[in-house]
C-alpha cells in the first residue's frame, strides 16, 4: 500500500510539472505573419459583439445576435460558430461583407501546435467579386494570457494585447486564398489575421477588438498601377 501511494504521489507530481510546462509551452506561443505593404488590408470589429450576426452551438457563454438567430445545436456542428462581418479597407474606400464559419481543428494538440481553430471565410466586395479563405489559427496564447486567467481565475486582465494567430494551412504559415468570382476569379494567394484586443469583458469576452485580415493575390495590380 505504501508503494502504491508513493507511486501515485509521484505520478501526480510528474503530471503537475508536465501540466505547468504545457501551459507555458514555448512551442505553442508562435506568432503569425504580419502584413506588408503589398497586402490588401481589411479591418473589422469584434467577431462577437460588432458582427452583423453571430451564432454558435450554445456550448459557449458568448452571446448570439441578433435576437432570433438559430443556434447551431445539431451534434455535427455544435462546436462551430458563424459570424457575418462587415470589413472596411484600411483607407476607408472599400467595404466588404464576410461570412466566417469557425470550428475547432482536429489538428489541435498542446505539445507543438496549440489550440487550433479552423476558419472558412467567404468574402465579397459588392460590384467586384468574392473570394474564399481557408485559415488555421493558434489561439492558445489568447487562452493562456487572457481567457483562462480572466474567466476561470477571476484575475484582472492585463491588456491591451496583440495576437497574430494565423499558422496555416499554407506551408509558409499563412492562410490560403482562392478567388471565386468577378475580379478575383482564378487568382490564388495567401492571407493572415491580426487582432488588437482593447477590452475583455467578463461576460461577453472580446468586447473591443481591432481585427485585420490581409491578403495578397497573384497577379494583383499594385496601387501604383
Amino acid at each position, binding site marked *: 500500500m505504501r508503494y502504491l501511494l508513493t507511486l501515485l504521489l509521484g505520478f501526480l507530481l510528474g503530471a503537475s510539472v508536465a501540466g505547468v510546462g504545457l501551459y507555458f509551452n514555448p512551442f505553442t506561443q508562435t506568432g503569425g505573419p504580419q502584413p506588408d505593404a503589398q497586402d490588401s488590408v481589411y479591418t473589422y470589429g469584434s467577431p462577437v459583439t460588432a458582427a452583423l450576426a453571430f*451564432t454558435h452551438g450554445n456550448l459557449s457563454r458568448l452571446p448570439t445576435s441578433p435576437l432570433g438567430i438559430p443556434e447551431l445545436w445539431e451534434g455535427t456542428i455544435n462546436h462551430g460558430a458563424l459570424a457575418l462581418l462587415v470589413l472596411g479597407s484600411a483607407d476607408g474606400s472599400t467595404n466588404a461583407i464576410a461570412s466566417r464559419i469557425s470550428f475547432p481543428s482536429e489538428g489541435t494538440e498542446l505539445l507543438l501546435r496549440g489550440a487550433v481553430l479552423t476558419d472558412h471565410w467567404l468574402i465579397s466586395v459588392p460590384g467586384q467579386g468574392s473570394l*474564399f479563405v481557408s485559415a488555421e489559427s493558434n489561439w492558445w496564447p489568447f487562452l493562456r494570457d487572457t481567457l483562462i486567467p480572466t474567466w476561470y481565475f477571476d484575475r484582472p486582465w492585463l491588456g491591451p494585447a496583440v495576437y497574430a494567430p494565423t499558422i496555416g494551412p499554407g506551408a509558409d504559415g499563412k492562410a490560403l486564398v482562392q478567388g471565386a468570382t468577378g475580379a478575383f476569379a482564378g487568382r490564388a494567394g495567401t492571407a493572415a489575421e491580426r487582432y488588437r484586443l482593447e477590452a475583455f469583458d467578463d461576460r461577453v469576452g472580446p468586447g473591443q477588438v481591432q481585427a485585420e485580415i490581409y491578403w495578397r493575390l497573384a497577379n494583383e495590380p499594385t496601387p501604383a498601377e
Partner: protein
Amino acid sequence: MLKTVFISGVLLGLATMIGGAGFYPLVDHPRLVSRTQVLPNGGRGEDFLIRLPVDRIVSVGTEGLSVSAVAFPGGLELPDTLSGEPSQIDHFKVRDADGNVIGVAARHMLALEDTAAVAWSITIPSRGSLWLTGTVDPQSFGAAFSGIGYQPGESWSGNLDLFMGTAAESGQARGGSAEFSGLSGTYTERWNVTGIGDAGELRGTIALSTVTYLY
C-alpha cells in the same frame, strides 16, 4: 526502493501528460457516413440538401436579387456602405441526402455587370470546406415567380422548380480545404419552392448536386 518507486511515478506522470498532449485527440468531430456515389462515367456524386425555412440561419441583402429580399432574423440590414450594389447573402444548415444536418453553408450572390455571380462555401467540420461558384441571370428568379402570377408581399403555395444556371450545370466545384482540396467538377443548384409565407419566407428545398473529380 521507495525512492525508486517515487521517481518512477514522476516519470510516468510526465510521460502520460506529454504523451496525452501530443497524441490524444482533443477535437474529434462526429462524422456521418458520406452519402457519395461513384458515377458510371467517372467522378464522384454527392448531394446536399437545404430545407427552407428550417435550415435558414441568416439572410440579408438588397432589392433585386431575390424574390422578396426578406432578411432573417427580421430587421437585419446591410449597412449603407454595402447597399449600393445588389447582393444577397445567405447562410444555411446543410443536410446530406438522408436529411441529417452535417454542416453550415454560406452563399453570396453579387450583381456583376450583366450577370450575377454565386459563390457557395459548404463547411462540414469533420471533412473540410467545399467551394462552388456559378453565374445566374439575376432576373430569372423574379421572372419565374411573375410567370406563375406571384405578387410580392403576398403568400403563395404551389410547386415551382428553378435551376440556377441550367438544369445541366449551375457552375464549377473549385476544390476547398482538407478532404475537398484537390477536387474539381461541376454542380447544379435546384430550388424546389413550395410556398412563400406571409412574412415573405420561402418554403421548399435547395438541392446542390455535385460531381467531382481528383485533379
